[in-house]
């Protein structure tokens, strides 16, 4: 199971790098969906041998929401907004990928300084979680389309989720359910706002949202 978990972690890092290099938004949504499915597997694999109803539920709900429901919601928003690809991001695709690699190295450095107590299910949990979060933040600040930013936020949340299910194995279920619930509502509200931006501006380009400047 440890091998499986490590593989899932490496795949997560790959999905992050792939996302950074993509310009077509529907491909980006699919990548994030794949990430959601991987997260469910991480939840299962990191509690291997000790599956109980709670873990199974968290994994199932995780896959259902992050792997299926969000992507469908975003595809609908994409169709409504009639856009295909991200236009001229603030940071180009190749520099983005390089920045993603740098984020991974940085995360490895931080993880080495914060050793996990006890025997963690995988040594890659902290670096993967941090990389995913940093990549999410990078997408939020470097992309212009509101939809891409919402995707970035999802990836950021995925990073926290990796840490949550992988490390805080004994944290109360309240927190884990809270993650899913709040993310669901957050993206639901964000989805609505994206629709409104689309209607208001005929595109979902946040650079148009620049009246309120100092």
């Amino acid at each position, binding site marked *: 199971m440890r091998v499986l978990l490590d593989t899932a972690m490496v795949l997560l890092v790959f999905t992050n790098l792939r996302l950074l290099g993509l310009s077509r938004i529907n491909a980006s949504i699919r990548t994030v969906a794949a990430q959601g499915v991987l997260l469910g597997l991480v939840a299962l694999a990191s509690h291997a041998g000790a599956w109980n109803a709670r873990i199974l539920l968290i994994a199932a709900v995780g896959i259902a929401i992050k792997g299926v429901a969000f992507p469908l919601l975003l595809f609908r928003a994409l169709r409504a907004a009639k856009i295909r690809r991200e236009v001229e991001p603030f940071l180009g695709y190749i520099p983005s990928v390089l920045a993603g690699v740098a984020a991974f190295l940085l995360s490895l450095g931080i993880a080495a300084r914060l050793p996990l107590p006890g025997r963690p299910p995988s040594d890659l949990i902290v670096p993967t979680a941090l990389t995913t979060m940093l990549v999410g933040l990078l997408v939020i600040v470097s992309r212009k389309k509101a939809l891409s930013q919402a995707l970035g936020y999802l990836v950021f949340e995925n990073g926290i989720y990796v840490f949550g299910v992988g490390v*805080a194995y*004994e944290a109360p279920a309240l927190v884990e359910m809270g993650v899913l619930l709040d993310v669901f509502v957050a993206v639901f509200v*964000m989805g609505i706002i994206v629709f409104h931006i689309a209607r208001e501006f005929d595109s979902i380009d946040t650079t148009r949202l620049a009246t309120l400047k100092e």
Partner: protein
Amino acid sequence: MLSALVLIPAATAVLCFFTRSASLRRALLLGAAACHAGISLATWFRQPGDAWNGALRLDAIGQPFLSVLSALFLVAAVYAVGYLRRESPGVREDFLEGFRFTNAPEAVFTGCLLFFLSTMTLVILSENLGLLWIAIEATTLSSAPLIYFHRHHRSLEATWKYLMICSVGIGLALLGNFFLAVAATSATGGSVPLSIHALCERAATLHTPWLKAAFILLLVGYGTKMGLAPLHTWLPDAHSEAPSVVSALLSGALLNCAFVGILRVFQICVAAGLGPYAQGFFVWFGLLSIGLAAAFLLAQRDYKRLLAYSSVEHMGILALGLGLGGTAAFGALLHAVNHSFAKAMLFLLAGNILAAYHTKSVSEVRGVLRRIPVTGVLWIAGLLAITGSPPFGTFVSELLILRGALEQGRFWIAAMYLGLLTVIFIGMAATMTRMAQGFPPQTAGASEPREGSMAIVPPLALGLVVLLLGIYLPPPLDAVLHRAALALGAR
């Protein structure tokens, strides 16, 4: 008792979503606000027991903030009813750019307002850090539709920024909670309830590097929501684009809730002997916020943004007071109370000015004292209150923070604090008195605007509270604030 405080507004909110009649909805809003205020008044006389298996608890830190929230919401609800009467439904024209837009349905507005109250109450009462986090996230989600009440592109931009920045902040805070769980697991190994009480009790056994990392993440996360510079960028936009009554609640109540979140984490740090480590961060965040707010206040062209930057300043003062500790920590708690009332009062008055002049630009508003005299007089009183002039309560609390700095011999900090406050006083006084004096322009608003009692009584009441707190600090409040300061490591 405590669960009623959370559940009554939530239940009323659901009712509001499904109520057709506007007058019934407004009655529900007022009723829920009055109930909430009544119960929180009762908590001063009879200490309520824990609820939800100990997840809800009212302690010395929560008590003053709960009362401020109740009082503020009651006043805001009265003002909101008057506001909703003025805001006729249907298509309307934008003041600034002349395009046409509609408002969000009133049912959504009232419902979200009540949900907002419910979630903020939950923040204050949470005894569990996990629940606290969920509640803070829920405040973001319930207030976003309020900011997007006027459906046009500027408010949409403000809402998007608010959602994006605060959601990322709240995400970091969640990671901080997980780090805290790790810090606790490493000591005991067993299951970790993130109960504040339990964490404080065994604080000495928490793993220090993880606790430090958790503190930084939680400070940055909740600090974003609180509007500490340089994480404040959503605040001026959201406050200036939201309806004034919502701005009043955002500034007066929501920022406090984020502050409560930070206080809870600080409480654990103090118990773990990391007080001085945490206080260093507070001092710098505080000074940076005050300084940055001063810079943006001086050249501000929009009076609602002016008030928003003043909120950044006051959040900085709170952080600074907490960072200094001792007398200053008590001062910071008292200042949180004073600031809430003073700032909410000013935002409500700004709403009156906006209704009479149809502009948010400082240069186009002249002669408030002549056109809407009561608002004008209160506006000047509010200016004195917010800049900490005697005899208002803010003067006392700002002085206490200064005394805290001097007692510890931190003269540089005291000098910077005083200097920046002076700059801010000059900046705000210049702008706000210019608006009040002179002759109103003849063109704007052909019909003479009237000041309804529902637009005047709420800010007047808030102003009286700040004045009263400056002259006489009620002993129960004094005692509770002292106990809260003790829990935060002050002697």
